[in-house]
Every structure is written in C-alpha cells, then in structure tokens.
C-alpha cells in the first residue's frame, strides 16, 4: 500500500532513461504512450543532462499505432529527432505498449543505421521490472550494439599510454551524487597512473565508444556486474568487482593496491599518491578531533538507500566514527533478493522499497541520525532525528560536484556528520538550559 503511495523509483524504461540521460552526447528516443517520459521527468527534477527530463524525444503513440503497429511512427520520430537534436548516439527505447503490439524496434534502429545514423534500440518495457532492471538492459543492448555503430562526430582520444579503466555500478537513477562520485573516482584512478573511462560525465559518448578497448572493468555494485560480465565474454576484459565504491583513505588504499596489481602499474607511484591523500586528509581533519570527542562519540544512525550507498556510507561511519548503525534498508534489492543473496552486513538489514515498511523501521530504530532520501525527511523530522540526504531521490538539496566517495567524499561526510552532531548537541544544550531556568 505504502509503496503505491510513494514509489521510490519508476519502471525499467525510467531506469534506461536515467542511464542514458547521464551520458553526454547520447539522446534517448522514447517509443511509448504520452506519459511514460513525462513521469520520469516529474519524478526526477534534477534529471536530464545533455538531453532528457522535460525535453525527451518521444513518439507519443495513440490508439492508431497500437492497432496498426507503431513502427512507422518511430521511424518518423527517429528521423525528426536526428534533425533537431545534435547527438552522437541515439537510443530508441521500447515501452510496454510497443512490446505488447510487437513493434520491431530493432528493425527501425537497423534501418536508421543503414542510412548512416548512429541509432541503437533497447527493449525496456516497463513491465520487465524496476529501474535497476532497465539500467542493466540498456547497458546490455549498448554493449551488444556498439561495435557496429559509428558515433557521430566521435572525439578522438588523444594518444595515452595509461591503461583505461571502465567504471560500472554507480547508477545515476539511484545515486544522486553520481557525478561528483565519478569525478572523484577519476581523480583517484588517474592519481595512481591509470585512466578512467567515465560514461556519466563530460565526453560520455566517446567513453562509450572506447568501452571495448579498456584494460579493466571495475564494478562497484551488483548493477554493474552484468555489463562487466558481458564485456568479459565479448572482449575478454578482466574485472575487478567491489561491493561498493571506496570511501575513506583505508578503502582508497585497498582500491589503489588492487588496481596496481591487476593493471601492473607503478606501485611506488601509486603509494606516493595515497600518502599525499592521507597527508591532505590529516591536515583538514586535525582540528576536527576535539569536536568529535566533545559532540560526536557514540551516535546512532539508520541508513536507507541502494545497497552500494548503504554499504559505503554505513561502513565509513561505523569504522571512522564508531557510529552505532541500528537499521540498514536496501531499497534496490527488494525485488531480487532471492536471485542473489543480500550482502551479509553487521547491522540489522532489510531489503525493501516500501515506504510504509521503511517508515516503521525508522520509527522502531530510535536513532539520532537518518541517512536516507528526501522521502524519509518527514519521518526524520517527526522523530527529531537529523536528516542527511544520501540516496535517491534528493529533493531538499541542489547537487553539483558533491561526493561521498574516495578521499574527498570522506572529508565531506565527516563535515556533514560533525555538523549533524553539533545540531544534536545544540538541541541538548537548549533543553538543558530551559530545564535550569525553570
């Protein structure tokens, strides 16, 4: 019931849309009823990159196309989109309606490709599953189609001797900080002597085209595993699979070491990079220690978000600040927990996306800090807990290059955590003062 009232995310089509919007130079073309694309735009106010959001090309089919087939409508839409939107790659996304009536999406894309247009198709009918399912599917179709498609105006990668690394598993529709997170990962990968091939970032389309030539696929969550497996199958690219992106210097060091070994990089240089990062972090954290001991010892927290976010942020809070994590809610694993076991976490863990259940879990937990999405902000307020937006959707905060990954992400999370602790302490002080005055 509660899930019906407050769905966290959309369907497979929306997952594919969120993915493609994040790749600069890629233009989604939605072949669906009027309404499918707008739902996604309305639910994700910060969505839309190069193209997308409220400006998403769509065929807006009606009864006529359902009865007689919508192939020619899509053909027309592809033709017109290519004319008015400058893209390097166009992806026709199929919907429930077009799957039900059997529109030949692939055929339409091939037809366009034969005319020299960079068009691929992906069947992401909403009924196939949730946003994560759509994310996996569209990646699979991109990987399968790309070798045969030449992007319009490909930017030629400069000669670069450093081995390239594809980064998978941070899903733009699930992690609101993906842009900043990926920038930080790029900084680290480059710091230790490799090159990051970042799709969700500037020059994303060119990164797509370079995908098969990478020396390594790094996976940060379950949602990147299928893509990496497909790439290994097709190109033999080895994989490095983490359960989350690294956060904090310890994890950055582990990450660096794994990359050095897998890619045979200069270990000493990588070590020097990590040491510099450590020194820098220390410099910034020096003054924070007193504050921590005064106000932030023994805090309790609950986390709600996709499993990668919960693992990453929860792990850091517990390790760095001894935060007592009393509830971890994995919102991306409710549908497939049977298919793939949940990670065994040292905290009370539940996999659900149901707003009512999440509400109950949070009320039960009695925590001081709630790291979650804006959907949980009201219950946090209700409980008098401090709310920190870390997972999708984040509506209370505009996001630019903010990150909770790597070395810089650790500094930022430290700042947020200590600020929250300060808030809690203030409330405590005020209560105390009020009590004394009486």
């Amino acid at each position, binding site marked *: 019931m509660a899930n019906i009232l407050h769905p966290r995310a959309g369907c497979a089509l929306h997952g594919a849309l969120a993915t493609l919007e994040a790749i600069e130079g890629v233009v989604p073309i939605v072949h669906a009823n009027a309404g499918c694309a707008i739902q996604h735009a309305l639910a994700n106010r910060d969505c839309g990159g190069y193209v997308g959001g409220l400006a998403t090309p769509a065929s807006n089919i009606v009864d006529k196309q359902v009865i007689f087939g919508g192939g020619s409508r899509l053909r027309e839409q592809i033709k017109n989109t290519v004319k008015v939107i400058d893209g390097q790659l166009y992806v026709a996304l199929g919907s429930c309606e077009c799957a039900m009536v*059997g*529109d*030949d999406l692939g055929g339409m894309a091939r*037809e366009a490709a034969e005319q020299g247009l960079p068009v691929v198709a992906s069947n992401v009918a909403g009924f196939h599953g949730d946003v994560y399912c759509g994310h996996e*599917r569209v990646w699979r179709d991109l990987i399968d189609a790309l070798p045969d498609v030449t992007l319009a105006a490909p930017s030629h990668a400069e000669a670069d001797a450093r081995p390239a690394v594809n980064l998978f598993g941070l899903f733009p529709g699930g992690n609101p900080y993906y842009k900043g997170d990926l920038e930080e990962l790029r900084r680290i990968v480059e710091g230790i002597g490799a090159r990051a091939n970042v799709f969700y970032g500037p020059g994303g389309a060119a990164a797509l085209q370079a995908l098969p030539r990478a020396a390594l696929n790094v996976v940060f969550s379950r949602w990147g595993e299928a893509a990496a497996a497909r790439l290994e199958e097709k190109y033999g690219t080895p994989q490095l*699979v983490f359960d989350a992106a690294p956060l904090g210097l310890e994890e950055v060091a582990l990450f660096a070491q794994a990359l050095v070994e897998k890619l045979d990089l200069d270990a000493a240089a990588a070590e020097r990079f990590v040491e510099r990062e450590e020194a820098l972090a220390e410099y910034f954290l020096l003054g924070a220690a007193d504050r921590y001991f005064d106000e932030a010892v023994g805090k309790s927290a609950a986390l709600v978000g996709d499993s990668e976010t919960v693992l990453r942020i929860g792990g850091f809070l517990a390790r760095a600040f001894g935060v007592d994590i009393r509830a971890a809610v994995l919102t991306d694993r409710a549908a497939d927990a049977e*298919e793939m076991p949940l990670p065994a976490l*040292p905290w009370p863990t539940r996999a659900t996306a149901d707003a009512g259940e999440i509400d109950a879990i949070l009320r039960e937990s009695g925590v001081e800090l709630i790291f979650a999405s804006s959907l949980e902000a009201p219950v946090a307020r209700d409980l008098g807990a401090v709310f920190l937006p870390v997972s999708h959707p984040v509506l209370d905060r505009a996001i630019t290059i903010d990150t909770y990954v790597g070395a810089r992400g650790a500094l930022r999370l430290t700042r947020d955590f200590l600020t929250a602790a300060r808030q809690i302490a203030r409330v405590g002080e005020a209560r105390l003062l009020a009590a004394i005055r009486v």
Partner: protein
Amino acid sequence: MSDNVNRISFHARPAGGGKPVAAGGAASAPPGTHIAIYGKGGIGKSTTTSNISAALAEAGYKVIQIGCDPKSDSTNTLRGNHYLPTILDSVRGGNKVHLADISATGFKGILCIESGGPVPGVGCAGRGINAAVTLLRELRLFEEFKPDYVLYDVLGDVVCGGFAVPIRDGITDRAYVVTSSDFMAIYAANNLFKAINKYAPTGGAKLGGVIGNGLSAVYSNAIIDDFADRTGTCVAGYVPRSLVVSQSELYGKTVIEANPKSEHADIYRALARHIADNDDLVIPQPLGTNDLRDWARDWGDRVFNLDNLETGAPAARVAA
C-alpha cells in the same frame, strides 16, 4: 565465475557472491541454423516439423524443436505424447525457470521444448511467445546444447506483431511455409510472405522455401509450383496425404520412428536433407490481394477443365 574476476569486499562478509542475471538479448548469433516453420492452422506444420527433426536427428545432427504455439502439441510425436510442462506454465508458477523443467529429450536425442501460452481468450499469446523465446536465450540454451539445427514450429496465421517475433529480431534466419493446394492455405502462406517481406530488409529471416503437404489431387503440385513461381520462391518438397502419417501420429510417433522403411519416411528424409543443405534464401514477393484472387480464379477454371476431363461428368461451371 572466471579467473578473470577479482572480488574485493570493503564491507562485512559478502554472502558468497551470487551470479548476476545472465545477460540475454540479441548478442552474436547463437550456434546452429535456426529455422521457423509457418503455415495455416491445421495444415501439418507440427507433423512436418517433427518428421524433419526426426530425420535430421537420425542423420546424426543435434536438433532442438521448439513449439511456439499455445496448444503446445508441437513435439508430441517426438516424445511419445508424454506431458511436458511449457515454458509459460513455469513462468506462470512464478519460480525461477530451469531448462531441465521445461525440456524433454525425445527421439534420437532431440531436445523438445514447448513455449505454451495463456488460457485461450485471455492474455496476449504473441507477447507470451516473445517472452518464452527471450527466456530460452537468457538461459543460454543454444550455447549450452550447441545444436546443429533449431526448428521453431510457429502457430497458424501471423495475426499480430508477437507472432512475427521468430522471423525478426535475428532469432531465426530462415523460414519455411507449409501449405496444401487449398486456397486458404496459400492465402496464409502469402500473408507470411508479406511479413517476411516487411522484416527481411531490416535483418529479419528470409524464406527457405515452400513445403507442400497433404497433397492428394493430381493438380496439387502444379498449383503450389505456380504459386512459388509467381512469388519468386521455390518448393522444398512435396508430401502427399497418407495413412502412414495418421497411423504414426496415433502411435504417438513420427513416421521416421514408427515406419522408418515407408515411402513417406524417405520423403521426409529427402525434405530434411534439402532443408539442411539449402542456403538459397530469398525475400518472397507476395501477391496483392486482387492478384491473389485472380490467380485463384484462373486455377479454378483450370481445375474445372481437368475434373471434366477425368470424370467425364458435366459439372456446372462456376460463374466467373
């Protein structure tokens, strides 16, 4: 999990990393020659397909036959009429579908699979066939079994987009159509030609040929020859109507198995050989609705004359 994958956990103790969902979809062409058999309802698709499968298996090939028909009776004669749960039965059950639950090994090792479908009158059978075929790819059936030939026995008329799935999306690369010399059977064949004609230019299947079946009249072969000629296709074989076929079916067997020495068994063997060797695929030129009608009327006249010749009985000529 391959040696090429290193797993590193920052957190806790990951419970023995399960496998990510196998990626399906239209990757590189799966192993084997994939052949779709179409034709009007009741014309003999399943009978013919099963006998071709049996003949191919007898010749030592690895064969899969997939019934793409909610009736799920395609492979009956290959496995003695035993019950076989369909793919969609298993999907409906809601559990994870395993290949072993939805396949049976029939005559000479032929792997038999039935897509099944919704209850008649509800749901969407076209979507069902589509989902079933996709599921087989996701289960990596073809990579595991490594067949030489995969035959898809697709139900009757191509009534909607869903039923055209086997001839587009790169699932099969060739289709055969079974027809008798009856007008409605030819009409259905012509409709299939329209679908092939539509999808072949964008990577859909092409036509391998026409299979004449249940032929009994003296002029039957000539009608089929002429239709093939007009549509720019060729005839892969002619199977006369015969009691051997009916009798074998009653025993729950193909002719190849039940009456291996019969003349019909050899007819099916020859047909199978032709299909195995034929790489001459064409995009048929279907007749327009009026052309088809004119063509039929023309044959009506000829058959009338022929009948008169044979029986000598004066028959009332149908008004032109």
